[in-house]
């Protein structure tokens, strides 16, 4: 019924890290700056801590079913039909997630990098890559992540080093102007972008890991590391571009890359930042898609998920073209609808499941 793919603890951490960074690094500085102004970086830290808290809940939940994935567990605890109903909701969440992330990628490319190339070209290419990755399976995806990890770190460190001379600490002052409320608001939106969607990892975690016991720790480490990258980018955006510019810019971290001018020859390197995203966005969309396809296969009790990959990829590519009718709709959706949407599946569902699971265990005894 499920693939018996096993990935190592380290691969799992790297996947989690890429997934946490995902699209977050692209958009979060701007939405944090809108809420918390010059304290956006504090909001990022708060969001990161909140995210770790959520992951702690996930870890407890994971201990309840060390040898099942979430779809099996839902059926196990809630009964076959009701469990499958909830599972449908979860794969719907993954589906929307995958489509929106692919759209993000295409939209960024047509807005900033290659404006005359139709968005369909990027989306089809990117979706084919995901289809390829999913057909090759989880192990291949995980190994790819492991190989790309050092490159990601090198690129990121180079960029951060080049940006250090541009930092103006005055731009993050005064620190305690607006109090705690906007920071918390920012933290919630951070968590909803980068931590709550981690729920889709329950398709892998904890059953598909080779050393089950350490899986929780790996989950935690991945989120921990990913958050640090996002905090650094937010801090750099605020302290270099300033609040106003960060808030107004659609892709502040890309604008950050444009700031690098060293000795008139190291310049115009913003595409390196884009390179970083291609990696993280690929893993984010691939994992969303993986969760969607394997979830679908399980609900309908297919033997293998692979035959579903190509059609699902085509549906995803087509759907990502219409998931947001326009860019303003996207911004509106992300700030209003998406947060409660991800709260339902990323927090409410695991909490419910946790309660139901504990109850179920007691009843069996």
């Amino acid at each position, binding site marked *: 019924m499920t693939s018996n793919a096993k990935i190592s603890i380290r691969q799992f951490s790297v996947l989690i890290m890429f997934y946490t960074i995902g699209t977050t690094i692209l958009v979060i500085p701007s939405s944090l700056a809108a809420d918390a102004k010059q304290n956006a970086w504090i909001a990022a830290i708060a969001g990161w801590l909140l995210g770790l808290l959520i992951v702690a809940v996930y870890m407890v939940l994971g201990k309840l079913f060390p040898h099942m994935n979430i779809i099996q567990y839902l059926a196990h605890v809630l009964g076959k039909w009701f469990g499958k109903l909830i599972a449908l909701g979860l794969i719907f969440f993954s589906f929307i997630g995958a489509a929106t992330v692919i759209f993000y990628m295409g939209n960024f490319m047509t807005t900033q990098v290659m404006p005359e190339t139709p968005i369909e070209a990027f989306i089809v290419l990117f979706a084919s890559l995901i289809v390829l990755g999913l057909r090759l399976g989880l192990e291949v995806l995980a190994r790819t992540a492991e190989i790309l990890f050092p490159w990601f770190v090198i690129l990121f460190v180079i960029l951060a080093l080049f940006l250090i001379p541009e930092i103006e600490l005055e731009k993050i002052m*005064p620190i305690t102007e607006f109090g705690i409320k906007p920071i918390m608001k920012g933290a919630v939106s951070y968590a909803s972008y980068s931590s709550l969607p981690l729920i889709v990892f329950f398709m892998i975690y904890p059953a598909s890991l080779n050393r089950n016991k350490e899986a929780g720790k790996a989950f935690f480490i991945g989120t921990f590391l990913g958050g640090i990258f996002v905090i650094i980018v937010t801090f750099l955006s605020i302290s270099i571009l300033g609040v*106003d510019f960060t808030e107004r810019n659609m892709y502040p971290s890309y604008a950050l890359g444009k700031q690098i001018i060293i000795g008139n020859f190291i310049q115009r390197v913003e595409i390196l930042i884009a390179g970083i995203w291609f990696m993280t966005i690929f893993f984010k969309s691939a994992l969303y898609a993986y969760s969607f396809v394997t979830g679908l296969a399980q609900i309908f009790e297919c033997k293998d998920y692979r035959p579903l990959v190509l059609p699902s990829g085509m549906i995803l590519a087509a759907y990502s073209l219409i998931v947001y009718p326009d860019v303003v709709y996207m911004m509106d959706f992300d700030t209003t609808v998406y947060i409660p949407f991800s709260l339902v599946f990323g927090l409410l569902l695991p909490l419910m499941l946790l309660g139901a699971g504990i109850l179920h265990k007691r009843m069996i005894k």
Partner: protein
Amino acid sequence: MVRLLSVLVSVFLLLSLLSGCWSRRELDELGIAVGIGVDKAANGYRVTTQVVSPGEIAAARPSGNRTPVTVYETTGSTIFEAIRKITTKSSREIYLAHLRVLVIGEALAKEGIHKALDHFSRDHEVRTDYFVIVAKGATASDVLKVLTPIEKIPANYLYLALDSSQKLWAPTATITLDELITDITSEGKNPALSAVRVIGKQISQTQKNVESIEPPGFLKYSGLAVFRKDKLIGWLNEKESKGYSYITNNVESTVGAIACPGGGKIAVEVIKSKTKIKGKVRNGKPNIDIVVKMEENVGEVECEIDMTKRETISELEYAAKLRVEKIIKNTIKKVQSDLKVDIFGFGEAIHRADPAAWKTLKQNWDEQFAQLDFNVNASVKIRRIGTVANSFHKEGVE
């Protein structure tokens, strides 16, 4: 069979790539715009675009009787329309990524520039590393039509002259679009842009201008244009502009003259300068402390003074300190009394120091700024005195 088929299919798919990108733009199809000027027109904008004529710039032997750049002037109700309209006059598509300067005409600047700037911040092709300047007593179109000696591309001249005068002489401001927009939107700071004047307008537009050893027509930076939000409200002269650069910590190097104790003058070169602005609020009244730390070298001695004595140096240091403090004080006073607009970012300093008090102060910050108290405290260290100790004046030229 399947294998053969898949090979064939992939070969055919690869064929489709041979035609290249569909959005390719060859270099010889692009008109590279280096300067853009925006002026007011009857209904909308008059946009002047300076485009490089590659045959004259790149060829080993330019024909010589053609100008190295050409200028297109178009009008439109919006900037974007006006730029696209250039295609009716130009054989090449205008490419904006190498823009060096954006010139704003005086008349438009007085009316407000924020509407005109949106396109430049929104368009993906325009980068943000060019300077924004204001044409003083002229239209932007006049500025972009001057042919300059040495630099074949006048927009490059505008860029480089501004950059070097900022670095070596200080009374100019190299403001890019991002910084300008940040200043316009800031509650505690208003923008100031470098002003450029056109001298000898009639003659400057033809090749004749660069044929004489001293071109009769030329461009010259002169001080700063002061804005309230996005509207031009006045000008600063060279000295005041230097004061502005000192206050905003933009002096890299400059030269100033100080009087000798016994008459005559000494010129000193600033080699390092760092300004810190500290704001505080006392009894609801804003107060600004400006601390300048400078290092200088002596560059010219035109009086009889014993440069070998340590007392002389400390006397000079004191005189130099007073000089800088005076420049800064005069600048602030002039801006407070005449222009009444905070271009120095004092409001931001108050905001950083006391966010709670700032909430009430910002309501009428322009008035608050006009009567705000400030202290200037400069400290000058003279490090070197050049390659000679005492001047040869001393050995009795009498």
